[in-house]
Each structure stands twice: as structure tokens, then as C-alpha cells.
């Protein structure tokens, strides 16, 4: 019986395991050193804030794995022998000893690398002091929980999604948080200025001390190797007992790396060869079938780097659902039906304290020249909608056939239907059509105030149009394109 071994029990690895089991009878082993069972990484923050217990983050009950004949092994992989098709485990507690003896091994026929990410550290002085960490793994949560009683003031470095989550977490435990953001406004490398300003206001409203255009210079420790302050590049010193490093994550591929020679004076190569000759760049390089350059070895999720990414997709995608889709896809390939990784229209979502955010399609921070934008913001300053659409000019390289076809949407404080926006963007509906039918996309609970009329009026006023609302909320069942069967 063929043996599929998966390293990593996150969303990618577990989705792969589940879908392989659905399609095949082969032996499946999932290896993780982090936890015994699959849990939702995105929910660690809720455990810290007391919204739930760790056991609630497990999407499947513990009996599920045995029932579905998915073997779980709790171990850290030390190295892989791709020739022999064998994995070697690290002995317990030999984290720092690269030469330590091997703690057992396991053979595979097919190997899926779902190694996830690791928080970035950019070589700051003091970055390894006690009280300095990222927030990614279960172990990160544990160490944060352990330190919490000693933390009065904390500094968070890096203005992204994990940063704002960490700020919310620390704030829930009544810790003073200073948030150092390199840019001039929160997350403005991803968000257009208005949205960035909206989030910044809301973060400040929650008593987080946001410091823009502020960069970490060094982290200062006390005599016990515990962080006591940080210094910014402008020379300010901020006292703190905790530093959260949330400046992004990188593929967790240390186990596949081999020591590199001196690279000075050479151009950066497109890839390097890791253990056993596996092609690596920032992540593990894979083709569109999620295959690495080594036969029977695949890489999925955060650790995979796509050699030829799909249109509108990055080469490394660190999103929950892309990991899931890669897992679904690789399972097909492994079960004898080679399938390309084909994520559809981009989407994502997040929650900044109390404000929910969803996005569908492309809404870059800087408006491309072939794109126009329409932005509406509620007077409360907490709700907004931005719709980007194709500029109405035949000379520009039109990506879609319709003039004024919608390209993407950002929505804050109004929930919208994924399937409706997916369809609108895929079929290139015009901005006018979309605005007139916007209530169709509304996914807010019953009785919530609706803003579609206000939004439409703003568009009419700006463009001199006289559009009128043509649909109502909650009639998705009547939409011709939504094919639902019972």
C-alpha cells in the first residue's frame, strides 16, 4: 500500500490528508512537532483573549483521525533523504544540536511538505532577548501566556494583520501597547489611503498608541537577558517588557537548507539547491501541479513558492484558504488525477478590533492607470466601500471585455456575499450594474441598516448618472447564476 507522508498538520497538510483519504485507500501519516492535533492557527488570538479554550480551536474531534485512518505522529523532522525516500526525526530537546543523533525514521512513497511559516526577524540587535517574539505557533502562544503577568507595557513592531491582532490581544489583558509602524499610515502598502486611515483611526480609538513612520533600531535587554526597552531609529527609547515582532512571515524551510557559500559579488540566483538538491528560493519552488523538482515530493501552503504564479496572485501566498486550496489540489494529483493549482478571483477578510473587512478581486494600494475607483464612506468613519473598475478607454489594455467592468471591492463594516462578487468580477459586470444591484451582495444579518442607496447616490452625484437600485437584499436564491441544489 502506498504511503503518503505529510509534514505539517496545519490547514494545508490536513486538507491534503483528508482529501487523499476521500479519494484513496493509501496509508497516510501526518507529522507535526507543534501539536498532536490540527488546530486553527487563526484562532490562537481568541484563546489568549479568553473567548475560547485551545480545544475549541480544533476543527475535528480527536477520534476523527483514527476513524479516517490518518496516522498522526508528533515529532520534528530533522532531515529528509530524498534518494532513500526517508525522513529522520529529531531527538527530543536537541533543538540546538545539529549533529545530535537521529531519533528514528519513516519511509514514504510520496511526500507532501506543508511546513508553514516562521515570523521574520531582520537581524535587530537584541531580537533574541527574552520577551521578544512573533505570534505564529502554538509555542508562541504558550510563551506569551507565560510572560503576560510580567508585562505592563508592550511594543509591537510592524503594521500588518498579525500586528493588529497582537495589539488587540495585549489590550484585552490591560497591557499598554505602542505600535511601531514603518509606513506613514497603517497597512498602506496593501490598503488605499482612505481605508488605511479608517483602520488607523479605529486602532487609535481602542487606546493603542500608534506611532507612524517609526522604525525599530534596537531592542535593549536587562542583566537577565530580558527585554526592558526598545530604541527607534529616531532615537526614542520606549520602556517595555514585551516586544512583538510582526513584520511578516517567511516560509519555514530551515530543515531543507544547506549552508551556502559566500554570495558577495554574485548576482542573486533564481534558486538555490537545498538538502538532496531540492530547489529553494524564499520558499520551496513548485510548478503549477505543486510538484517540487524532486519526484514524488510536493510542497503546499505557506512554504510553497510558485515558479509561475497565476494572474493576480503572488508567488508565495500565506492565506488560510490558499493553503486549503493547495491541499485540495495536491490530493487530486497524488490520487492519480494531475490537477493544476487554480485559485479563482482573489478574496480575503480580516477583523480590526470591531471592524470587519472583506475584499474580493483586485484593490491595490496604488491605483493602476487602467483602473478607476469609487469610494464611499459612512459619516461614522467606520463603514466604507471601495469599488475599483476598468477605466472606460479602448486604448488601455482591457483585461475584461466590458467597459467599466468591476475589478475588485473593499468593504468595511458591511458583509458581502462571496459568490455574488465572484460572479460579478468573473463576468466583468459594469460598476453601474453592480451599484444598482449592490443589495444582492449584502450579507449582513436581518434588520441591519442598509447603505446601498446612499452609496448609489454618491456615485450619481460624482458622475452625473441617475442610477436606481434594482434589487433587494437576501434574494440570492433567485439569482440565475447561483446554482444551488438541495
Amino acid at each position, binding site marked *: 500500500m502506498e504511503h503518503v507522508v505529510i509534514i505539517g498538520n496545519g490547514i494545508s497538510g490536513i486538507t491534503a490528508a483528508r482529501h487523499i483519504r476521500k479519494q484513496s485507500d493509501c496509508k497516510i501519516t501526518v507529522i507535526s512537532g507543534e501539536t498532536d492535533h490540527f488546530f486553527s492557527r487563526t484562532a490562537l488570538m*481568541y484563546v489568549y483573549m479568553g*473567548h475560547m479554550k485551545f480545544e475549541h480551536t480544533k476543527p475535528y474531534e480527536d477520534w476523527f483521525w483514527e476513524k479516517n485512518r490518518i496516522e498522526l505522529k508528533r515529532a520534528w523532522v530533522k532531515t529528509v533523504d530524498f534518494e532513500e525516500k526517508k525522513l529522520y526525526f529529531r531527538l527530543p530537546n536537541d533543538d540546538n544540536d545539529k549533529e545530535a543523533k537521529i531519533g528514528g525514521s519513516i519511509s514514504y512513497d510520496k511526500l507532501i511538505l506543508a511546513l508553514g511559516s516562521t515570523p521574520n526577524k531582520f537581524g535587530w540587535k537584541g531580537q533574541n532577548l527574552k520577551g521578544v517574539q512573533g505570534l505564529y505557533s502554538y509555542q508562541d502562544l504558550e510563551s506569551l501566556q507565560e510572560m503576560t503577568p510580567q508585562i505592563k507595557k508592550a511594543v509591537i513592531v510592524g503594521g500588518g494583520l498579525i500586528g493588529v491582532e497582537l495589539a488587540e490581544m495585549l489590550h484585552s489583558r490591560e497591557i499598554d501597547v505602542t505600535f511601531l509602524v514603518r509606513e506613514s499610515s497603517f497597512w498602506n502598502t496593501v490598503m488605499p489611503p482612505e481605508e488605511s486611515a479608517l483602520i488607523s483611526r479605529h486602532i487609535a480609538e481602542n487606546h493603542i498608541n500608534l506611532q507612524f513612520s517609526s522604525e525599530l533600531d534596537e531592542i535593549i535587554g536587562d542583566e537577565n537577558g530580558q527585554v526592558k526597552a526598545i530604541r527607534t531609529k529616531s532615537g526614542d527609547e520606549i520602556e517595555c517588557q514585551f516586544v512583538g515582532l510582526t513584520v511578516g512571515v517567511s516560509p519555514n524551510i530551515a530543515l531543507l537548507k544547506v549552508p551556502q557559500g559566500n554570495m558577495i559579488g554574485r548576482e542573486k540566483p533564481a534558486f538555490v539547491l537545498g538538502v538532496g538538491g531540492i530547489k529553494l528560493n524564499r520558499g520551496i519552488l513548485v510548478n503549477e501541479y505543486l510538484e517540487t523538482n524532486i519526484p514524488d515530493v510536493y510542497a503546499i501552503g505557506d512554504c510553497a513558492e510558485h515558479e509561475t504564479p497565476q494572474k493576480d496572485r503572488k508567488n508565495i501566498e500565506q492565506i488560510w484558504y490558499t493553503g486549503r486550496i493547495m491541499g485540495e489540489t495536491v490530493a487530486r494529483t497524488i490520487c492519480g488525477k494531475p490537477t493544476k493549482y487554480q*485559485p*479563482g478571483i482573489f478574496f480575503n*477578510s480580516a*477583523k480590526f478590533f470591531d471592524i470587519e473587512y472583506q475584499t474580493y478581486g483586485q484593490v491595490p494600494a496604488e491605483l493602476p492607470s487602467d483602473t478607476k475607483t469609487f469610494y464611499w464612506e459612512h459619516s461614522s468613519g467606520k463603514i466604507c466601500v471601495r469599488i475599483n473598475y476598468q477605466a472606460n478607454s479602448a486604448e488601455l489594455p482591457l483585461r475584461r471585455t466590458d467597459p467599466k467592468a468591476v475589478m475588485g471591492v473593499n468593504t468595511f463594516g458591511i458583509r458581502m456575499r462571496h*459568490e455574488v462578487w465572484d460572479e460579478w468580477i468573473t463576468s466583468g459586470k459594469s460598476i453601474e450594474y453592480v451599484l444598482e444591484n449592490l443589495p444582492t451582495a449584502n450579507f449582513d444579518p436581518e434588520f441591519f441598516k442598509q447603505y446601498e442607496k446612499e452609496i448609489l447616490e454618491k456615485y450619481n452625484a460624482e458622475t452625473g448618472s441617475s442610477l436606481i437600485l434594482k434589487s433587494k437584499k437576501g434574494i440570492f436564491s433567485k439569482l440565475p447564476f447561483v446554482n444551488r*441544489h438541495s
Partner: protein
Amino acid sequence: MLQKLGLFIFLAAFGLFIGTLGMNNYKLTNEILEKNFKEDALLDAKIELASMIDQNYSNSYTFASELSEGINQLNKVYNAQQAWDKKIYEDTILSIVKASANGYLTDNKGLMFLLTFGLAIIGALLFILPEIQKPAGIKNDGIYFNPAMTRKWLGISIGTFLIVFYIALYFKPQYIANWTMLVDPVSKLINGGEASRWFMYGFLYTISVLVMGIRYIIRYRHSKYQIFRTLSIMFFQTCIAFILPEIMSNLNLPSADLKNMWPLDYSFFFNYRIDKLIAGGTFGIFLLIWGIVLFVVGVPVMVYFFGKRWYCSWVCGCGGLAETLGDPFRQLSDKSLKAWKIERYLIHGVLAFAIIMTIGVLYTYFTGSYNLLGFIPTESLKSSYGFLIGSIFSGVVGTGFYPLMGNRVWCRFGCPLAAYLGIIQRFKSKFRITTNGGQCISCGNCSTHCEMGIDVRAYAQKGQDIVRSSCVGCGVCSAVCPRGVLNLENAETGTRVMIAPDVLLGNLMEK
């Protein structure tokens, strides 16, 4: 600061409330016995209780237990004589205790009412209202660090108090006679008479729903669905369940809680209630027909359009208490597959029990025979249902177990009406909880905070609509979802996604 003061005032008032049980002196007199016993039993009572007559008791517990002992002796004799009509029940004992009481509490009912109920309400509101200063949104911080909400010492203490309270209320009301006395002023105001134990319970229940309803509204004030729903249950409990029946009886009409219905109202078809309604003239007949139409026509029609939530989380009194007083405990419901299996056996078992019991009762009513099909004793069916389901399950377990098994123990495992509503919701209804494409991140907030123990995430993460007979449509899964994945909706019955799609939205690979 204000909140700490509120908590202090509440605890002081609660302490005094417990303390009132030890207040008053008690003296049984012949007049009291004459008032409370029928002539044929009076002499027996005077002989049996002779040692108590005109004795001063400084302690209600000693008095009540000696009295109960004496009356137990009497009942034993009557049992032996098969003189069922002479038997003395707990309401009589309760009113003897009340009549025998004298002392500070008896003389200062109004003041004591204000110092207990009044201060408790003020304290609770002082504790609750300042929460409005926080920004609106989901505020679940610290739930799992709170000893009341996590089956720790405080939760177990609250549960124990509630269990003891319900046992006393149902079976030994003579020990909580002083509590009924506290609400006498309210009872006098509303219906002119002294408070029965059920008036006391109804008052306490309504206050709990109102005060904790305010807490709930503040807590979920970012959601209009939650605000409207909570106002609805507060209205139905206060006006329809508590005040309206009192007005009806003031007008000498047969009184009824117009929103309660069979089989939750399991005694609806009991002979004494049918007789009373028929004797009540046109209005009584109206109530009889209303009660039947409600469950024969009202339930299927309303559940078809809106799901069972129209009743369970918008109207029902049990649901009302669960959603308000019980809200802090909603996360304690068991989400396991095993619990779901037990739930289905239990709740449908209770429904079957209720149906058979009612058939038996009606059979006896119309035929006069006490044996259904010749061998099923209808009277013991009736009394065992009343004891096991009506008192123990719905009261003692149903509410007493809030801090141990979540706030919907009764609704989930026991309520026969919920079972009936649920069957229609599962098989013929427009209601479902829709999941939003591929947005779910499996975080588990929805499942954790589902009071009915539904593993909502299991559906959401595979893109399947949540169509479960137990879902009461409280809407909290949708409220706590950080990614806007869940929405309670009504649409054509055929559009409910009952089987998860092979591939979730967002993955373009071949289906």
C-alpha cells in the same frame, strides 16, 4: 468603580435575600388550621399538630419541618384509608407557614422587598450599564478566565443554588415561605391578593429576563437582530406571560399564558384545565381553541417561513430566560458528536412521552376509563410526566444546570415542543444559516458560542448550510464570526445547501 459598587450592592441584597429565610417568628394557632383545612380533616389536623399549637418558634426551618412531619403522618393515614381527597399538598403547608409567621419581615414587607429585590436590581444595573462605554462589538474577552462561566467554583456554586432553589420551589415550598412574603406587596398591587409561590417565581423570572435582557442588549448592541429579538422575549415574558394572566384573573376570566402551548404546556389537556376553560364561557372556549390552533396551525406555518426561532428565541419563556439569564453560560454546551446523539434520543423520547401521556389523559377524559388500551394507567403516566419532565427536567435540570451544561439544557435535550418545531425546521422550512463561500477560517467562535451545541464550524468550513432541527436561531454564531461567514436567512426550501460541495468557492479546479 461603579461596577464594583454595583456588584457589592447586588451581593449584599442577595445575602439579605438568603437571610430573610431565617427571619420571623412562627406560631400555629387553631384559627390558622381552621382556615386551611377542610372540615373533615380539621379534627385530625388539630390532634396531629396539637403539640405545635400556640408554641413560639423562632426559626422557620424548625417550624416548617415539624409541620411537614405532622402532615406527612396525616397523609400516611389518608393513604392507608384511600381517602385521596383528604390529602394535604404543599400549597396548603406553604399557606399555613405564611399565616403562622409574625415578626419584622411580616410587618415590613414593603421595605424588605426594596432591600432585597429593589437593591439587587439596582446593583445589577450598576454592574451592567457601564458596559455601554466600551465600543460596540463582540466583547467576549475573559470569558474563559471567569470562574462563573467555566464550571469553576463560582459556576458550581451558582448551579447548586439554582438546583436547591428549584427543588424547594417545586417540592418543599414551605421552606421558602418568606420569599413569597417578600413579593406580597407586588402581588397585592397587581391582583389584590397574597403572592403564591408561582407568583413569586413568575416575578423573579420576569425580573431576571428584564435585567439580564438589558445586559444582553448592551452586549450585542451592534446587531439590530439581537436587539429586536431580545426586546421581543422581554415583552412576551413581561406582558404576555406575567401580567396578562393576572389581568385575566382580576377580570374573573380563565387565565392563560397565551404564548405557551402544548406540548411544552403539558397540562393543557388535563381534565381540570379543560373543564375550567369550558366553564369559562366564550372566553374560555376561545382560549381552548387558541391553544389548539397555536400548535396545530401556528407552529407548522410559522416554522415553514421563519424556522423555529420565531418561537424558541423570540417568544418562548424558557428560551427567554436562557437567552438572558443564561447568556453568560452559552459556551458551556457540549459540541461533541456523542452529545448530539444523546440529544436526539432524549428530546424525541420526551416528545413521544408527551404525546402518549396526552392521549392517555384525553382517553380518560372522554371515556372515564383509567387504562389506555386496557393496560396503560393514564394517571401514573400523567403524574410521572409531571414529576420527571415537568419539574425535574425542565426546572431543576433545565435551569439549575445552566452553569454546568450551558443555558439551553432543557431546550436542547428535553423540550417536546422544541422537538416538534425542530422536525418541521429540519424537513420543511425556508430557514437556514448560510455560509459565505470560501471565507471560513475554521476559528471555532461559532461552535464555541452556540448554546445548542451545534458544531457550526463543521458546516461553515465545508460550505454547507446549517440546517439543524435544534437551531433556535439566536444569531450569535453570525455575530461572533470574525469573517462575515454566517447569516440567518429564509429563502425557498429547495435552495438549502444540504450536501457540502466537492470544491469550495475560490478553487477553480474541475468539480
